[in-house]
């Protein structure tokens, strides 16, 4: 669905944010892009909906080069949910907020009403329909922002740092929600540095550092590679840390899942007896 070929990008200030990034994202994938602050993660995903165009190289969305299409047109297919919901909330009611995107994309009135209802239900916001988004709590505002993007049903959803400021319960609900979205066929990309969250989701992981992709593989293969993780300022998940320390006892190295780790340890003990 998305192809990036040798993408270079420099900001007008001269900072070179991307240095030769190439990757392919297929429809229906679930991907986490990780890396230190300033690695280029947000810069990269802004290329997927055309907000930024490469200085060198190409980005193609469903075969069409992003240079040739407007941001609005690309956004219809690629929904980007920004990190801070307060950067987009401005309407008098949650309902109007959700309808905003639908209206921009030219949906007919009856569709707008239907899709707004659907989005409100999906994110559990029905009771806030007539409430001003500014009156809601931080977590609720995040849900409104997400609802407003999902309302127009983009093929791909990109979430920029969705776990910041969330407590464990909220993160768990978010995780289940993302898995559900992906199961319904949506391509989901999350940009995050929350390693434990990624370990729980176990998506394909793309690791970036200083404008380049330094690793790309399944979560269990990337998250136990200490060299690469270190370059990206990422600490491996606690479970992996524990097993890496006990690797000499014959325990598997590439485990990121809690239950799998428990099983492996219990197994080893049984075998030793």
């Amino acid at each position, binding site marked *: 669905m998305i192809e990036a070929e040798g993408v270079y990008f420099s900001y007008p200030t001269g900072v070179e944010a991307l240095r030769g990034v190439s990757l392919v994202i297929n429809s229906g994938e679930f991907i986490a892009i990780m890396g*230190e*602050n*300033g690695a280029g993660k947000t810069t990269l995903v802004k290329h997927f909906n055309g907000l930024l165009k490469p200085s060198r190289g190409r980005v193609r969305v469903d075969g069409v080069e992003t240079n040739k299409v407007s941001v609005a047109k690309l956004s219809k297919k690629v929904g980007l949910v920004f990190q801070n919901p307060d950067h987009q909330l401005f309407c008098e009611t949650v309902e109007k907020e959700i309808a905003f995107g639908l209206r921009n994309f030219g949906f007919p009135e009856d569709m707008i009403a239907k899709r707004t209802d659907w989005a409100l239900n999906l994110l559990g916001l029905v009771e806030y329909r007539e409430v001003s988004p500014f009156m809601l*709590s*931080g*977590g609720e505002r995040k849900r409104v922002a997400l609802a407003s993007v999902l309302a127009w049903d983009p093929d791909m959803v990109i979430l920029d740092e969705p776990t*910041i*400021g*969330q*407590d*464990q*319960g*909220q993160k*768990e609900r978010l995780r289940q929600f993302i898995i559900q979205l992906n199961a319904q066929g949506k391509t989901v990309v999350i940009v995050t*540095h*929350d*390693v*434990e969250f990624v370990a729980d989701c176990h998506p394909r992981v793309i690791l970036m550092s200083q404008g380049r992709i330094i690793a790309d593989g399944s979560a269990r293969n990337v998250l136990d590679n200490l060299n690469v993780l270190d370059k990206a*300022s*990422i*600490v491996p*998940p*606690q*479970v992996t*840390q*524990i097993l890496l*320390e*006990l690797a000499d*006892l014959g325990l598997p190295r590439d485990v990121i899942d*809690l*239950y799998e*780790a*428990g*099983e492996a*340890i*219990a197994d*080893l*003990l049984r075998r*030793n007896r």
Partner: protein
Amino acid sequence: MPCFVGFKVPLIKVKDLTYSYPGAERPVLRGVSFAVERGEFVIITGPSGCGKTTLCRCFNGLIPYFYGGEISGEILVAGLSVKEHSTAELAQHVGMVFQSPENQLFALSVEKDIAFGLENLAIPREEMRRRVDWALEMTGTSDLRVKAPYELSGGQQQRVAIASVLAMRPEIMILDEPTSFLDPASARRIFDVIGGLNKDLGLTVVLVEHRLDLATMYANRVIVMDGGEVKLNSDPYSVYASQDARLLGIGIPKSVRLYQILREKGVNLDRPPLTAHEAAVMIRRIIER
């Protein structure tokens, strides 16, 4: 600093604290009671909306002076009753570091920012210079002395914020989710700095956090809140081992959850490990038995 406070009186004493924001139907804090002794490192955690952020703001007078509302109950900080002393006075005993790195740096150079509080207190210049140098050193930010805030990373900004508060030489430092916007490596560095201040300087620390896996190893006590009430208040091991902790939905470190899973399988570690290393050591001991 009141010397007559005496040996046994805790540095922070909260009794039956109840508070409602102006115009709110329900109180955000209900009958909160606990104490913090000098030199402790206390983590306050709980699900969003449990009142922990509100509680923080009661310690230095932002509540009730800045926010208004109705407050009842007793709250003594460094021997001073919060209800009877201004925020400016309390600021000399209780320092506070906020969540957003950007919005607590005012000046255009780090050293001027650290001096900000001292200038407000009309500290003489020589003493100010000494304290600024000291604060820079204690937080590992000496090489950032002349930089402007926009030249600093989020982690550096937060360290500068800590230095700015430290320079005022408070007895207590309160930090309200200081690492929310930081990546794990920077967060770790912040907790390291705070832990160092607690251990080496005896600074009493109250840290409000979600990211328990990174911060727990420095704490000697964890308070869990929910719905405006204190639900758990004990050392980290006891808190994480309790059933309630799981039900309250706080971010229990994975190492502790592994301990629980292993227990279900009949593998008993001595106690819930707070760090990955601790867990590995305990597991190794059992395997090699």
